[in-house]
């Protein structure tokens, strides 16, 4: 069953962390080949809470704490997947991908192709992304573009718990490797704070959200804001603010980077004629460039104004709060971009 988030009177709100754990538990109950591996995902329940409760229900055989050996255990997940299991493996912070990327991009992502489809690699690599809480330059990155650039792995990045559960269920059931990138600022961990909109209604029963379909998080007609993960919430906030001044922004939540739903993006921009891309990943050679190019190579004539990107500048992520916040995308920057693009100005703000 593929679903879109229904508005419900009687809401059952979950955090993304709990939604991920629920999807995992449901699939583990259904399918004995599903298991979880990673650092501190057992007793600890995952640094970002997404495996909480699993070890109590499924035991340490199926919820395995690993040594700090990412190359070995991600490689092992590939070997297990090829042998009939469906591993879910965690890379604690995406920033750590450098120690194990061969096992990811060159092994997990390619073996199916190298084998001409005769081997399948049904696994989920889940990993936390994002900054904003001053964790420094090796614990705050998104590197969405890095994962999305290299062929053979699907890449999803939910902005809310409903999508997180549905995408996680879809990812576990997918016969291909799926990288599940969850943003720390949306997880709903008390100790990190959370964006309220990320914690939303999640049905108890199992459902999937199709991998490769973007969502219109807010319909509008004047400008399209394309984003993913936490950027969707910043875009929604900006849309709300400019709405007070008569600007009607459409917000596209990509949800998946691979496959990329170019049709939805193009249709939205064809309607609004304006495009802003918001991306917490580095500016150059990443998501923002790809989205813009995907629109203009298809049809240049739809655009009424030059597209704009609001992305992380091409610098390592600084620790100091004032510096980091200066670099991060936020609603203010989006509002300013919309104002400039539409040649209007929010009442009461300086030019």
């Amino acid at each position, binding site marked *: 069953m593929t679903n879109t988030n229904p508005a419900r009177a009687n809401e059952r709100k979950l955090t993304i962390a709990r939604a991920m754990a629920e999807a995992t538990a449901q699939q583990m109950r259904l399918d004995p*080949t599903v*298991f979880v591996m990673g650092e501190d995902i057992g007793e600890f329940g995952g640094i970002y809470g997404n495996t909480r409760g699993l070890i109590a229900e499924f035991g340490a*055989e*199926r919820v395995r704490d*690993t*040594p700090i*050996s*990412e*190359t*070995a*255990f*991600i*490689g*092992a*997940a*590939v*070997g*297990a*997947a*090829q*042998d*009939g*299991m469906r*591993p879910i493996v965690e890379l604690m912070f995406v920033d750590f991908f450098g120690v194990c990327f*061969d*096992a990811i991009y*060159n*092994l997990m992502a390619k*073996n*199916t*192709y*190298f*084998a*001409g*489809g*005769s*081997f*399948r690699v049904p696994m989920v690599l889940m990993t936390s992304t994002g900054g904003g809480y001053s964790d420094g330059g090796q614990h705050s990155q998104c590197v969405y573009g890095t994962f999305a650039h290299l*062929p*053979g792995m*699907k890449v999803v990045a939910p902005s809310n718990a409903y999508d997180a559960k549905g995408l996680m269920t879809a990812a576990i059931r997918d*016969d*291909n490797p799926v990288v599940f990138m969850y943003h720390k600022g949306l997880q709903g961990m008390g100790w990190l704070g959370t964006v309220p909109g990320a914690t939303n209604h999640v049905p108890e029963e199992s459902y999937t959200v199709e991998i490769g379909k973007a969502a219109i998080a807010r319909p509008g007609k004047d400008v399209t804001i394309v984003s993913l993960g936490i950027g969707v919430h910043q875009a929604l906030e900006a849309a709300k603010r400019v709405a007070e001044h008569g600007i009607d922004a459409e917000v596209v939540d990509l949800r998946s980077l691979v496959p990329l739903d170019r049709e939805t993006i193009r249709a939205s921009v064809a309607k609004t004629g304006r495009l802003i891309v918001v991306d917490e990943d580095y500016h150059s050679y990443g998501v923002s460039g790809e989205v813009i190019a995907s629109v203009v190579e298809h049809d240049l004539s739809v655009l009424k104004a030059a597209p704009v990107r609001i992305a992380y500048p091409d610098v390592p992520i600084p620790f100091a709060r004032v510096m980091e916040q200066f670099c991060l995308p936020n609603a203010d920057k989006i509002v300013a971009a919309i104002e400039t693009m539409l040649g209007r100005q929010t009442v009461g703000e300086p030019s």
Partner: protein
Amino acid sequence: MTPSREQKLWMYEKMLVSRRFEEAIETIYLEGKKPVFNMAKGPIPGEMHLSNGQEPCAVGVCAHLEPSDVVTATHRPHHQAIAKGIDLKRMAAEIFGKATGLSGGRGGHMHLFDPAVNFACSGIIAQGMGPAVGAALSRKMQGKPGVAIAYIGEGAVNQGAFHEALNLAAVWKLPVVFVVEDNAWGISVSKAASTAVPENHVRAEAYGMPGHLVRDNDPYEIFATAGKAIAAARNGEGPSLIEIETMRLAGHFMGDAETYRPKGEKDGLTLRDPISRMRARLIADGDADEATLDRIEEAAQAEVDEAIAFARNSPDPDPADALTSVFV
């Protein structure tokens, strides 16, 4: 543990198939690459790593394996693939890049995959270590029988993946055996120049697992040692490391002039070619007479000829099929 006469003849036959196969590949590889050697040309383009001399490592270990057991092989995989029982025709076709190849030409000689015998390999040194551990984990978790063998070169042992995988396998006590083919060279860099210990089997102690050394490329010793290690793995006693002193009779890849090799080294090796040594030994030990061995030779050659003919006569893939099989 000594091999039975039948096992010896099986080992000899598989060594021969591997050798004959590579001799055929060697010749065909050079087609279209003369007078000017250009890797991109000919019926078999790209890099070509021959395993001539290393056949004992393949057969001595794989003699103990079922099709359901798992092997992850290296960038130099032909002997290992053949000993594991890969479909030789489809393997040859893959090496030729044909539509009938194991993966329809997508892989090539460093990427041979055959699910029927649970065989995989890779072009990144030590990349098979993690997957072998994972396959062993899968068997343990599913309660299915089976061991996993990870082949690795002595140069690749200095890669981080080796360390991580051995530790993980030992911590989880998994049915996996790590086999180091020590041919003394990693491309042009000698073991002495790259490895801090004279022998790699001692590294097993760093993981609390048994480490074994087989000297002199001896197929029977390899058989005996692998037999013990594999039996231990099947019995739930956990992983082991086996180091085998073997030899690289050819260059690292075809086209390698090997100017870095000390003068005379290769002459010495050729005298100890494991194929002729095994033949002599089978006769000396009374395990076979010349006629029997000639028949095996002929059968091996015929099998190779058939595979090569199959590959030659197979069609190229549809170019646009390059875009398929990314996701299943």
